[in-house]
C-alpha cells in the first residue's frame, strides 16, 4: 500500500470532492432544478405581469393556494416516486372521497367529521391495497394503480348514483370541520398551512430519519436495499398509504371549501402531481429527489397556471408551458445528475 498508487486513483475519481464551491454544492442538490425553475417563472411573471395584479395580495394568494393544494398531493407522490413507485389512483381517490364527504355531510346531513373520517379510512384502504398488490405481485405499480384508479372511480360513480342519483352532490361545511379545512385569511386558504406542515415533516422524514434513507435506497435499487436489510415491502406500502392520504387531505380541503362533492374532482392530479415531482427533480426511475424539489415543482405549476391569466395571453396555453417546463426539467435533471455523479 503506497501513497503514489492512491493518488493515481484519485485522479481517476473525477473532480475532487474536498471543497466544492458553494454554487456547485447547491447545484448538486436534487431540488436545484426545481428551485431554479420556480425562481425563473416567478421572475418572469413578476416582471411582465407584476403591475397587472400578479403580485397583489389576491394574486399571490391565488397561485399560493394552487401550489398548496397541488403540493399536498405532490409531496407524497414525490416520496413514493423516490422509492421507485407510481400511483395513478390519487386523482380518483380525490374524487371518490369528495363524494363520500359530500354524501355524509350534505345528502345524509350528518357531521362532516364523520364523512372526513370515512374518507380517510377509505383513502388508507386504497393505499394499503395498492401497496400490498404491488409488493406481493411485483407487478409494475403503473398498471396496478391504473386498475385501482378505474375501480375506485367506477365503483364510486355506481355507489353515488345508487344512493343519491347524482355524482355531484352539495356538501355541508359546518362547525369545526369548516374552520379547519375551509378557513381563509385575506384570501390565503388554510391549505397553505397544511402544505407548510407537510413540507417540514416530509423534509425531516426524507433527510433525517432512517425511514427516509430506506425510501431512497428502495428506489435506488430494491434488490440492494433488500440485501442490506431494508424492509422494502414495508417502505413501499407505507408510502402508498401516505400518497392516498395526501389525496384525501386535498379532497377534504376542496370539498369543504367549495361545498361540492364530485366524482371527477381532482382527476388532473395524476398528471400535475407527477409533473410537479419531476420538475422538482425527482427521478422517474426512483432513488433521487427531495420533498423541497417537489414543493418547488408545485410552486412552479401554481405560478405558471395562474400567471398566464395576468399576461392576458391565451390561458389555454398553460398546459403548453407546463409541458415545456416538464421537458426542460427532465433534460436539466439528467444533466444535473450527471454533474452530481462527477461525469459532466
Amino acid at each position, binding site marked *: 500500500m503506497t501513497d503514489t498508487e492512491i493518488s493515481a486513483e484519485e485522479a481517476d475519481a473525477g473532480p475532487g470532492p474536498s471543497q466544492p464551491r458553494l454554487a456547485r454544492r447547491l447545484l448538486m442538490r436534487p431540488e436545484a432544478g426545481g428551485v431554479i425553475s420556480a425562481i425563473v417563472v416567478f421572475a418572469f411573471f413578476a416582471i411582465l405581469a407584476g403591475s397587472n395584479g400578479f403580485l397583489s395580495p*389576491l394574486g399571490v394568494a391565488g397561485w399560493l393556494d394552487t401550489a398548496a393544494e397541488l403540493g399536498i398531493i405532490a409531496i407524497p407522490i414525490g416520496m413514493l416516486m423516490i422509492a421507485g413507485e407510481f400511483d395513478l389512483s390519487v386523482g380518483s381517490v380525490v374524487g371518490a372521497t369528495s363524494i363520500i364527504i359530500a354524501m355524509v355531510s350534505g345528502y345524509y346531513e350528518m357531521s362532516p367529521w364523520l364523512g372526513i373520517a370515512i374518507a380517510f379510512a377509505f383513502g388508507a384502504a386504497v393505499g394499503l391495497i395498492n401497496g400490498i398488490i404491488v409488493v406481493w405481485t411485483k407487478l409494475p405499480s403503473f398498471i396496478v394503480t391504473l386498475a385501482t384508479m378505474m375501480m375506485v372511480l367506477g365503483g364510486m360513480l355506481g355507489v353515488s348514483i345508487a344512493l343519491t342519483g347524482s355524482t355531484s352532490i352539495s356538501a355541508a361545511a359546518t362547525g369545526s370541520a369548516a374552520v379547519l379545512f375551509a378557513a381563509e385569511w385575506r384570501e390565503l386558504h388554510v391549505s397553505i398551512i397544511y402544505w407548510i406542515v407537510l413540507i417540514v415533516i416530509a423534509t425531516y422524514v426524507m433527510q433525517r430519519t432512517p425511514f427516509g434513507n430506506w425510501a431512497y435506497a428502495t428506489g435506488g435499487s430494491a434488490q440492494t436495499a433488500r440485501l442490506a436489510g431494508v424492509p422494502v415491502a414495508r417502505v413501499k406500502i407505507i408510502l402508498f398509504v401516505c400518497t392516498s392520504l395526501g389525496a384525501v387531505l386535498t379532497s377534504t380541503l376542496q370539498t369543504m371549501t*367549495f361545498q361540492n362533492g364530485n366524482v371527477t374532482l381532482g*382527476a388532473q392530479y395524476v398528471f400535475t402531481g407527477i409533473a410537479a415531482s419531476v420538475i422538482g427533480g425527482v427521478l422517474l426511475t426512483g432513488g433521487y429527489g427531495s420533498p423541497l424539489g417537489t414543493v418547488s415543482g408545485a410552486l412552479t405549476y401554481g405560478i405558471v397556471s395562474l400567471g398566464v*391569466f395576468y399576461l392576458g395571453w391565451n390561458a389555454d396555453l398553460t398546459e403548453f408551458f407546463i409541458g415545456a417546463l416538464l421537458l426542460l426539467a427532465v433534460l436539466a435533471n439528467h444533466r444535473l445528475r450527471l454533474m452530481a455523479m462527477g461525469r459532466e
Partner: protein
Amino acid sequence: MTASLSLKARCVRWCGTAAVALTLSAGAGSIAAQAADDEAPIRIAFVSGPLYDSFFPPLYQGANDAADLLGVDLNYIPIDEHDIEASSARTMQVAIAQAPDAIVVGSFISSVVDPYIVKAVEAGIPVYVNQSGQATWEKVGAFGFVGQIGPDAGVVAAQHLSKAGAKNVLCVINVPGNPYLQAICQGLNEEITKLGGTSQNLELPTADSTDQAKVSRNIGAFLQSHKDIDSIFTLNAAVATAASAAVEAAQLTGKIHIGTLEISKVALEQVRNGQIEFLINEQPYLDGFYGVLFAYHYVKFGLAPVGMVHTGPSVVDKSNIEKIATVFEKYPNVVGSQ
C-alpha cells in the same frame, strides 16, 4: 383523464377544431381601439368556460367581436373544466386581482363563484353574470344577468317533440351527474308530462363520453330493450349524430324523432336531410357579445337592461335551416363551433 365534468356538457373532445378556431381568433385585441380613443379603454375581465369545450368558442368570439367594436380591453379567463371547483375560484381571484372596470362571469358552480362576486362588488368592481347563475345573481349584488335558463332548453325540446307526436322520450345525459344536464332533462320531463307523454333518462358511462361509436352502440342497446321509445333528445350534437346512427342501425329511421342541444356542421346537414328533427341553439355568441356590451354600457354610462336578458333557447329546424347553415359556413364560431 376520461372523466371530465363539462361545464355545459357539450362535446369536450370531439370538437377538436375549436382549438384551431381559437388560435385564429386569439389576440385580435384592442390595440386599434386604444389608439383611436383618448380615454383609457375600459378593462373587462371575462371569466367563462375553456375553448376546448365546443360550447365556448362562439361565446369567446362574441365577446371579442364586441370588445373590438367598442374598444374594450378584454381579458378572457377560462375555467378549467377538469378542475372545475378550484379553477372557478382561482379564475375569479385572478379577475379581481387585476382590478378591471367590470367583470363578466359564468357562475357555473354558484356555491364557489358567488362569494367572489360578493367580494368583487365590495371591492367596487361591477359584476355581470353570464350564461349560468340565474338563481342567485341578484342576491349577490351583480347588476344583471344575460343567458339562457337551463331547464328552458328541455321545455322547448319537449314542446317540439310533442308537436312531432312524441309520447315516450329518451333524454341522453352524456356527462353523468352534471347538474346542468340533469336540469334540462328534468325540464323536458315536466313539460312532456304536462303534454301527456313520459320521458326517461339514459346516463352514458363517463369513460365513453369521448367515443362516438361506443355511444352509438350504447344507445342502440337501450333502444333494443326499450321498444316503446319514440323520440330521443340529446344534449350534445355529436351524441345526436351517434343516436341517429343507432336509430339507422336498428332500422327505425323515421319512426324515432331526434332533437338535440348544440349546433354542428354534421347536425345541420342531418336536419336538412331529416335525420334530426331540430337543434336547440343556446346562442352562446350572444352571451359573449351582450356580456361585454352590457358591461361596457354600465361602466361608461351607468345604463343596463333591466332584469334578465334571455339569449336562448332558439330552435333550428327545417323552417330556418338555410339561413343558419349559411351563417354557419360564412362566419366561423358564431352559431356554433366549426
